[in-house]
């Protein structure tokens, strides 16, 4: 194992940043959900890297739970998108300002 753990941390940090920029910049709800998946994957890489380098399996178990939550999030998020599209005929977040002051 001659790849230092910092490489994995830097990689996951950059992927997390790309996902964050995607959430903030894009206006399409589907792309925003895809960017959230990017951020979840970045944290998973972090978990697995530390779990492997510290010899502790708890990190991999938590990746398992994060995967479960990601699956639930996708199911509910896509259901919300379909309901919104049926109501507004749009998936642009600028069109949804019902809760804005």
């Amino acid at each position: 194992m001659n790849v230092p753990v910092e490489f994995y941390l830097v990689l996951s940090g950059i992927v997390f940043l790309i996902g964050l920029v995607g959430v903030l910049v894009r206006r399409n709800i589907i792309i925003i959900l895809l960017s959230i998946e990017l951020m979840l994957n970045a944290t998973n890489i972090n978990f697995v890297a530390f779990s492997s380098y510290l010899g502790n399996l708890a990190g991999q178990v938590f990746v398992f739970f994060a995967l479960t939550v990601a699956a639930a999030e996708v199911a509910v998020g896509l259901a919300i998108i379909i309901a919104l599209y049926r109501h507004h005929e749009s998936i642009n977040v600028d069109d949804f300002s019902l809760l804005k002051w």
Partner: protein
Amino acid sequence: METLIFFYFAGVILLTATLVVALRNPIYSALSLLVMFFHVAGLYVMLHAEFLAAIQIIVYAGAILVLYLFVVMLLNIKREERFSKQGGVALFLGIVLLAEAVILGISRGIFVGPAHVPPQGEQETSVGNTESIGEILYSTYLFPFEIASLILLVAMIGAVILTKKGILESKSP
């Protein structure tokens, strides 16, 4: 050699992650996310997490991404979305935060040398990865495991209720 493989995986992951955010067509974004999931699975294999690599491909690439593609095809999007128009504020905040991070990093000495991680304990190579994860999952983490199944149940019911016809329209007959 191992470093070379890592850099291949990291390069493809960074490229496809950027493409997910940058491409205009949501179908292309979802497909590049698929490539990224496969390479993350390869990274897991490098880290001796074979069970998670298999789960990553089965759940993420097999289930979640198919759901995304299904919804993208279902909605028939007309590609009229644009980027948000807060570029000036975003640039200012980004520069401030980046300067803050660099100053903090220099003052704490992060960029001087790599932190030393003590390699305490080795991977259990006598037992397989899947077997040891199963043992720890069903003994130490049994209660969170049950809660995870409950979350999946709630998400399933929520998805069914939300997509039922007449939920949002019921107030205005």
